[in-house]
């Protein structure tokens, strides 16, 4: 009897695995984005960037046109991988790293301070029930600050008021099928059950909320989707 249960469980796992796959692809930017501006960092923080002054990160594009920092997700999806590991954002060189993250509702968003200087960590959510907080991390030995948001919200902003150029954004979802495009524009959403979905790409400049890029996809043991975003033409 015990062996029968084990066999059935194993079969179920195999069957489950067989009916799910990864949605992968690459996001490319078409057009020339406006130049990034220098950050007005103070002398203390400048020391963390010898030889190269940090800039804004509105369009992070590699040599092949791959666009980083796009939030990619399956609209209306349910379930997905559990969110037992925290999403980690570090403060390093007086910048938030990474700039863009995604998290699941209730997942821990952990903010570290790797700098020898003080930062205040100030999420400014707009979603109902998502709590605004303003806490301090004196230096690298300060304990991590954990946050958790009960309501889905796009591009929830974190800022440091001590250093007025420090920002990070976390898109919070009520499911587990979301990711952020890497430096080369590639992305991967794992464990997607077979079926038809709407794949949505949001980028703070090229495809902001309200002008997201949406593509109908069919997952059958996985799917490969390449998308191109365009640098928006200036408003007339």
């Amino acid at each position, binding site marked *: 009897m015990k062996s029968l249960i084990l066999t059935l469980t194993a079969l179920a796992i195999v069957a489950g695995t067989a009916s799910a796959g990864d949605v992968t692809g690459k996001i490319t930017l078409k057009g020339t984005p406006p130049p990034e501006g220098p950050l007005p960092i103070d002398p203390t923080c400048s020391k963390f960037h010898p030889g190269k002054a940090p800039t804004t990160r509105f369009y992070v594009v590699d040599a092949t046109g791959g666009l980083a920092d796009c939030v990619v997700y399956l609209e209306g999806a349910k379930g997905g991988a559990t969110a037992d590991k925290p999403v980690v954002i570090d403060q390093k060189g007086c910048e938030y790293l990474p700039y863009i993250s995604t998290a699941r509702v209730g997942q821990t968003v952990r903010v570290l301070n790797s700098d020898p200087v003080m930062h205040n960590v100030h999420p400014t959510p707009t979603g109902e029930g998502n709590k605004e907080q303003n806490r301090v991390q004196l230096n690298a030995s300060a304990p991590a600050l954990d946050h958790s948001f009960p309501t889905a919200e796009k591009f929830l902003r974190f800022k440091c008021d*001590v*250093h*007025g150029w420090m920002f990070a954004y976390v898109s919070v979802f009520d499911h587990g099928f979301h990711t952020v495009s890497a430096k080369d524009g590639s992305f991967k959403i794992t464990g997607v059950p077979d079926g038809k979905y709407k794949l949505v790409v949001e980028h703070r400049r090229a495809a902001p*909320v309200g*002008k997201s890029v949406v593509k109908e996809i069919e997952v059958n043991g996985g799917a490969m989707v390449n998308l191109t975003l365009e640098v928006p033409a*200036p408003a007339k």
Partner: protein
Amino acid sequence: MPPVCQPWLHRFAVLTALATLALIGIGGLVTSHGAGMAVPDWPNSYGYNMFTFPLSMWVGGILYEHSHRLAGSVVGFMTLVLALWLNGRPAAKWLRGGSLAVLALGLLASTSSNVKLDNVLFLVGTGVVGFGISFVWPQHEPVSPRLARFGLLALVLVIVQGVLGGLRVTALADWLGIFHGTLAQCFLALMCAIAMVTSSWWQGLKAKSQPMTVPAPVRNFLLVTTLLILGQLALGASMRHQHAGLAVPDFPLAHGKGWPATDAASLVTYNRERHDHREFKAITAGQIHLHMAHRIGALVVFGHVLGCLLKLRRTVGVTHPLAKVAAGWFALICVQFGLGIWTVLSNKAADIATLHVLVGAASLVTGALLTLLATTVFRAEPRAGAGL
């Protein structure tokens, strides 16, 4: 009966008004630099008593916010002294009572492990010093009953203002900043009024009958214009404390049009074109309407101040002191108009935006003092205000 002029009281009142103007300037810098939350706790600063906060930690946004807190404390202390001075001997009792309350609070705090020693020492020290001073000062008669009440009002306002500023930080409530910013302007007007009525110039004007008085319709017009400026300043404070940057970044057009579109698609376009390292909150239709209301308000105020100037020149003559002050007022409004445009064209540069706040404050004060002069000294019929 008019009070005897006290030159040192007047000088101190002027100094307090100037300190208040400086405080508003520093507060303007705090908001312009988006540094209002750079010190997350209050009344402490990063756990320190604000007067023992190490200089080495005055960096970035903390420099603005902590300076504002200290300047606020200075103005609060000066207002307390001024209120005691205006109220005279009767105020010694409430100085004594207040000092004992602070002393008791300090002793109570000493029993708590949550309160740091510097805070305990500060409270106990303040209580003891205040209690001691109350036996030697103030010992004089009140300057005048009305001025004594104004002194008390100033003290209440400065306390409310300090608490509002603190709650804005601890309650993470941007909207409280709107009241904090607007009340600051009212407080400045009150301090300037106290400074004016304690001057020998004011007493001289009161002592003799004025040949040219201001007719009631003009007095009312002055009052309405001053209230319009206050409304305009409140609109400005509402815009600033949204922390959304410029809702309309161009001038004289607004998002390229006479009246900007505020549909959802247009808002998305406006927001994604903001390549600003300050990464303000996304602008909303309401913020655009607020901005446009401020522009219309500027035109209305401009017209009204010009109207005040013309009415005064027509009724009391070009050489009358009030007409001369009104000419200065109109010049101030022209400067303010230009600074408003410059604020937009500079993409809300912190120093320009702060200067805009300061000149706005000066415009309100000028209007308030003109109205006060017109309704008391240069009023045809005798007024109860003669006791000031």
